[in-house]
């Protein structure tokens, strides 16, 4: 049987979800027999090809991230949101109570350690979106594994279910939001 192709992307987040994914211990050996990782921060492959499962870690907070998640959605059959940021907005969504200008000013000008700061404007620096969005407010998401970071158990459960051809819903006992 051909290996299932999986792509993962790391958007606005801390990479903790990918780390928690690596925390599934020996399951990763079994997994590598069944799955081929394409584009992923782990493989460092750039560019998309068509995959069966797309996994998104992180929320969508700027133009580039929006483009990436749209591209991933375009190339995958099933999209899984991994972690609180992708599922709900998470820590990144802290800025959502303020407007974009106030956030940029605070980060680049007002911070006590900043001397003569200015807001970066240059071609290639992606524009911030007005808010930080969870993945499902930008594209259609098929399943979710929340947690900050998600329990390795929950990640394992999610992938096992997907490999078995089912859409996973993390059971209550291993679901965590923190």
């Amino acid at each position: 049987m051909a290996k299932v192709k999986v792509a993962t992307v790391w958007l606005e987040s801390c990479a903790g979800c990918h780390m928690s994914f690596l925390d599934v211990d020996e399951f990763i050996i079994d997994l590598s027999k069944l799955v081929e990782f394409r584009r992923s921060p782990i493989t460092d492959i750039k560019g998309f090809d068509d995959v069966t499962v797309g996994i998104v870690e992180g929320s969508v907070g700027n133009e580039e991230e929006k483009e990436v998640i749209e591209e991933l959605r375009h190339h995958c059959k099933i999209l899984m949101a991994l972690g609180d940021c992708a599922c709900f907005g998470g820590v990144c969504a802290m800025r959502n109570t303020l407007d974009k200008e106030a956030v940029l000013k605070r980060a680049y000008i007002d911070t006590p350690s900043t001397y003569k700061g200015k807001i970066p404007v240059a071609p290639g620096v992606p524009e911030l979106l007005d808010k930080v969005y969870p993945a499902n407010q930008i594209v259609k998401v098929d399943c979710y594994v929340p947690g900050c970071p998600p329990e390795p158990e929950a990640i394992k459960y999610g992938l096992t279910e997907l490999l078995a051809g089912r859409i996973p819903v993390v059971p209550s006992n291993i679901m965590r939001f923190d």
Partner: protein
Amino acid sequence: MSEITLTINGKQCKGTQGDTVLEVCLANGIEVPTLCHYKGLLDIAACRMCLVEVEKERKPVPACAYPARDGIVVTTNSEKIEKYRRLVLELLFTERNHLCAYCVASGDCELQSLAYRYQMDNARYQYAWPNQTTDSSHPNIVMDHNRCILCGRCIRTCDEITGAHVLDFGKRGWKTNVCADINQPLGESSCISCGGCFQACPTGAIFSKISAYRGKPSECTSVESTCAICGIGCDIHGLVKNNRVVRIDSPDMTKPRGLLCEIGRFEPLYEAADRITTPLKRNNKGQLVNCSYEEAFEAIAKKFGTSDGIAGLASGKASTEALKAFADLMEKLGSKLVDTLDGDDCRTITQGIAKFDGKSGLDIEAKLEDILAADSIVVIGAHPTKTHPVIASYVMRAAAKNKANLVVIDPLRNPFTFRASVWLKPPEGKKEIIIGALGKSIVDHLPAKTATASNKYAATFKDIDVKKAGKDLGIDVHDIVKAGEVLAGSKNGVIIYGSGILQYKDAELVATILNLAALIGDKPRVISLKRYGNSRGAWDLGLVNAKGSVAADLAKCKASSLYTLLADDLTNSQELADSMKGVEFAVVQASYRSPVTEKADVVLPSLLWTESKGNYTSIDGISKKTVPMVKANAAIKADADTLKEVAKHLKK
């Protein structure tokens, strides 16, 4: 109350007419998820988690507010209902900024655990991301509106249980928020800091500063004990982690003595002062140095053996066991000069009661529960909001809920005054004039039948001229007349008095208050606010000197030695230290360094009430037990044991 039968999930369930569907469900072991429901509070159906289907109802109804009727058919667990509940959760999560990853309540949050239960792994709605504030102006309580679900549990607790009604909903519709007073910062509001709000809060919207991030309930051991601080004897539920009390809750706020106050909830969480951990002995350079228990006992035995007069002083902070051992020690020493630090209060009260009816003693005093049942309350010379806040809550509850007539006699504004039917503002002193005038005014308004019945008591006031009294006090006569008018009809009025009366050491005043109390009830109901957690226990043991204060004239009373059992008492220590000047040899048994221990020749360490097992008698005579919440320093002996050891070492 007639019995009714409902069909819930196909099961026949019995209930009582007047129950809500939720109550019947809970009584029959059918679980219904709730958020805004809180035991003992009025249900307001704010959260919609408890939606159930009722046959013939057009749409799902909230079980907590739907009256159970005979024969209705209820479904609590259909697929449709479960779908609605998940929808409600998603709406709650998207309405404000519920971000568990950095919320203090994560792991101890009812909203979160419901979201887990309903496997809410995403929200289908647009997030509102409102710009909510966090109010941390209060020294102990933080209000984070980002996490609020507007269930109103804090508000109802503040109103129905604490009686303060500081919190309420402010603004309208989408902008509705919990606010204190007229939308003031909590720290500047009239909040009495009882902490009921954060105990009731199902999320992390209101939390205690000192308990935050110090341990979730799941990581703590919990201990059921009694608060021994002020003498009300409230039940407490302590959460302990790493041998530190991290949080104190009430096991059931709606029960009598279940409500907590600022003092009980927060004081034990702070280390108050310099702890004494070993016995200390004064060396020949005059410094207090560490020594062993044996050395300390020897030194005490040596001095006490040769001393001609030995006085003993005990604080009402010590447990009954310690006080009993203290009394035994003093008896062995043959000392007649034994007293408690608040002995004056006891003498004034008991002599006052003796003047009133000659016999009944302290048992004539009312129970705290009488306040809740009272139809009128007089507060005179007492500030329970500061000294016994739970009593203050009872008064405010009685005034708000039972419409009890509250008469406050105090020159200064306090949290009661705005709830008072009449607020009399006599100048400091002159308490006998105002009490007399009030008594006369009540007698004037008594219905003819009662007037004869309580003739004996009414006679006390018959010669008083209310007009003249008003003039003497500089207060409006109409106020006194009005106070008499509102109090005259009472059947079970309660009078609360405290240090403002007792400071005059005038037994006559206490007797007059009892007479006044007899006029506003079928029997006199008075409650005197005692200074220490176990004052009443010490008084009941007969530790109070009948003749007069020992502490006040230590210099005169020819005692060359003194044994002071201070326990964890830090009040008035300077005053006591000053009065110890003439004493040759002083032993002090205390938990903390204080001016008193600095005057001592031998200091013995003492446990805190949070560390020891003991009995404490409440101000209305109910004995309650404390259980050690934290493990004490093993080198410190229990108070009673120390005292017994001292007695054993005496040669006599």
